[in-house]
């Protein structure tokens, strides 16, 4: 296993696999968030389930935290190695002639998304952990919706939230289809479909999160 994880190809395969996991996570997160637009009760009960179900709490959540930390730290390690592979830079580079901005700046868009995660943890995850593990409140099934509504009353927070999702979108525009290439899935028939699906996913998912934030900002009664 060490041989695999130490090799460049092995690392990129692991990067893709953690990426796939995060793609599923985003879809699930958006689905539950979207309930807040449709029904306050549905959002509260879905959030309560995610917040108290032992499988989610003690199996999926640790895997998610590991996945995020792994994806970030591996990204930083790979980027450092890649920069070291060209110690003397070119005087003139016409990078736009052969590759997209998104593909070249995954580390920047990725770090911006991680910076957003810090705010996100401060806003939602830390209060939730405090409620459960410090104050011992596990059975409040109605707190989630008002908490969400309250956070999205602040225009600065909503703006930061929206900007972060632009970075996520840029990250996904390359990351989605790139993950398939990294694990070796490339096919004349399916790869063009994966690229289209990737573009749809990369725009629709962040747009969904942005919509929810703006929706609640505009509907503060």
């Amino acid at each position: 296993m060490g041989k695999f994880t130490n090799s460049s190809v092995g690392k990129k395969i692991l990067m893709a696999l953690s990426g796939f996991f995060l793609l599923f996570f985003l879809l699930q997160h958006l689905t539950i968030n979207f309930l807040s637009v449709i029904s306050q009760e549905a959002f509260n009960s879905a959030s309560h389930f995610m917040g108290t179900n032992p499988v989610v709490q003690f199996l999926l959540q640790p895997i998610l935290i590991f996945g995020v930390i792994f994806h970030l730290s591996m990204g930083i390690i790979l980027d450092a190695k890649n920069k070291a592979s060209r110690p003397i830079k070119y005087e003139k580079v016409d990078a736009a002639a052969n590759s997209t901005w998104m593909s070249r700046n995954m580390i920047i868009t990725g770090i911006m998304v991680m910076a957003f995660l810090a705010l996100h943890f401060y806003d939602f995850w830390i209060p939730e952990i405090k409620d459960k593990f410090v104050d011992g409140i596990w059975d409040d099934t109605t707190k989630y919706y008002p908490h969400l509504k309250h956070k999205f009353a602040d225009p600065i927070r909503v703006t930061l939230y929206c900007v972060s999702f632009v970075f996520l979108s840029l990250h996904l525009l390359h990351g989605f289809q790139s993950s398939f290439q990294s694990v070796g899935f490339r096919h004349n028939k399916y790869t063009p479909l994966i690229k289209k699906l990737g573009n749809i996913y990369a725009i629709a998912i962040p747009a969904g999160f942005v919509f929810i934030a703006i929706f609640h900002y505009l509907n503060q009664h």
Partner: protein
Amino acid sequence: MSEKKINVTLKVWRQKNANDQGRFETYDMKGVSTDMSFLEMFDVLNERLINEGKEPVAFDHDCREGICGMCSMYINGRPHGPLRGVTTCQLHMRSFNDGETIVVEPWRAKAFPVIKDLVVDRSAFDRVIAAGGFISVNTGNAQDGNTIPIPKENADKAFAAATCIGCGACVAACKNASAMLFVSAKVSQLALLPQGRVEATDRVLNMVAKMDEENFGNCTNTGACEAECPKGISLENIARMNREFLVANLKK
């Protein structure tokens, strides 16, 4: 297309030897024929430098017909210049404008150290090949070519991968100085054929290990290599190498 004469300014990387710091030097080229190849323009420059008693610019070149892969010049921010699917020797001055400044640099990669001026040491590629880019066959009479049937599609893909001339443009173009397009082409040309399948597992493991040891960077799927490859080697080969590597790791 009728011949024209243009004036260009060359900004060329000059470096005495591997230990020298190196610097850019500027040369005015007057009345350059648009029918000249880029290397012929360098021949003219070098003749002038020799006549002036100066050191000519060292650059690699051999066949001058796009098959040897020697002419490694990074021109105006792109390997082999502004055209796609060509080497530097196939690039002509008609691709440039009158009055243009052209920046010419060597391949930049830790794995390709500069020897002199625009000449780099690409022997890291040879060591990657030596690590597994071969098949082991007994000597004796060659067997009949049709003994092992091979699907035409596979034969074509293997041949397309085998057109790689090892010029290093993929490494030069990649923002990570990754050699994966080269290595994957060499893995693929053999992995696609029955004769190459026999040693496929060891081959991919050994070649990837050597590639990493030579300090090439990682692949981030930007696709710059494929876009700049003079032989149009496809990213499909990198996907195949990733698959081969994954399966080989499960076996060994």
